[in-house]
């Protein structure tokens, strides 16, 4: 989910940059040099996973997965998503220099919010964990869509129609993201629970 260049106004671009810079600064502070390979390779996995196209009815959508990135990296989601967007911009020729701040915030802030909301629930009994994982996937995309809408609205009030269209168009995506997040967390709990937040058992590796 990203906003193209040339659409947003100066103040919106500036606040996006400020928020992204603050989030990235916190994220980098919490990420010491020993954890950087980990964050980088997860960021690469996030990049590749967002190329996965999931069918829905006659068409298909690609996964966004910012909720899961939030769960796996916490505040590290900011620098990880920033890098992923930079790479996407170059590799797919999307561009995105001026909108890098806004787009990072749109994806990463919901990820961090979901980390705080649901991070502590994931290690609980299975049905609580699955419901919160679903909510995590659903709400992270929902918040991102709201933020896209807000960025458009603050630019120009006449963007109301488009902002509403963006949010409505993402409703099915939210449900799919929720379902995928729930299954994904269930899978990770079985296979490698130490990746998820709040894991307290011993790590056998």
């Amino acid at each position: 989910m990203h906003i193209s260049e040339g659409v947003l106004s100066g103040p919106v671009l500036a606040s996006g940059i400020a928020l992204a810079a603050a989030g990235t600064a916190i994220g980098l502070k919490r990420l010491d040099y020993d954890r950087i390979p980990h964050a980088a390779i997860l960021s690469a996995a996030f990049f590749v996973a967002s190329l996965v196209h999931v069918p829905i009815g006659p068409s298909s959508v690609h996964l966004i997965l910012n909720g899961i990135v939030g769960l796996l990296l916490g505040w590290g989601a900011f620098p990880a998503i920033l890098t992923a967007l930079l790479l996407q911009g170059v590799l797919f020729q999307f561009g995105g220099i001026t909108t890098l701040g806004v787009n990072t915030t749109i994806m990463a802030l919901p990820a961090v919010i979901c980390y705080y909301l649901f991070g502590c629930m994931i290690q609980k009994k299975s049905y609580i964990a699955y419901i919160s994982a679903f909510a995590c996937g659903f709400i992270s995309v929902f918040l991102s869509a709201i933020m896209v809408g807000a960025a458009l609205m603050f630019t120009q009030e006449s963007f109301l129609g488009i902002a509403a269209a963006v949010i409505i168009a993402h409703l099915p995506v939210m449900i799919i993201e929720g379902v995928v997040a729930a299954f994904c967390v269930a899978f990770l709990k079985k296979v490698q629970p130490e990746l998820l937040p709040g894991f307290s058992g011993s790590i056998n590796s």
Partner: protein
Amino acid sequence: MIEETFAYGSSVMHRIDPRFRVVFATIFSFVAALSTRFPALIAALILSVLLLCMARLNLLKVIKKLMAAWGFILLLWLVLPLTVKGEPLFSVGPLIFTRPGIILSLQITLKSNIILLAYIAMITTMNLATLGHSLKRLRVPDKIIHLFLLTYRYIFVIEQEYYRLVWAIKTRGFRPGTNRHTYRTYAYIVGMLFVRASERANRVHQAMICRGFKGRFYSLSKFSVMRQDWLWTSFMSLAMIVLVILEWINI
């Protein structure tokens, strides 16, 4: 497959110092994004096309890339002229197209194309390792550079891993559809990617420690500023000043 389509070449643009290209791509993008007046926008468009000519890219491929952005612009053209309030320009049946709506759509169309063209001409003409190293020389924090270069290094590896998983499910007769089984399969693939990525990260980290990684990435490509770099820089600076003047004064 992920590939760097425009990264290699021998045009004038490819040979200009990447640091200058990054700096001017950034400045130009912001100048264009904040312009609203048509003389400035048209001058910027001419500059973008000029930069593209300097990069001598395959025009067909460039247009293909631009088309990806045109989808959203088309949506704007369908919505904005009808919803922005103001003096009506013309009407087709019950639909009234307003002047401010059309002007706004035109501005956005111009801006996105200008910025994207400039970006393709200046940034995608370097490979990502070079981009990482030039960002480092431009004092971007070290940790971001590490993250950037390592992510770049492993995107291709993880992509391979993803295709292996896809081949595996295909050989077992998996057919995607809109159902629970499909979503679970994809979720497990994503989960597996994360698991493998994290295991790989541990091994990479251990290997880096074993080889005495001291927190620096060395670059083999030297950055040396030549006369043509300064020539290009003065030209671009002048162009930026002209664009700002065109935006600010009323002619």
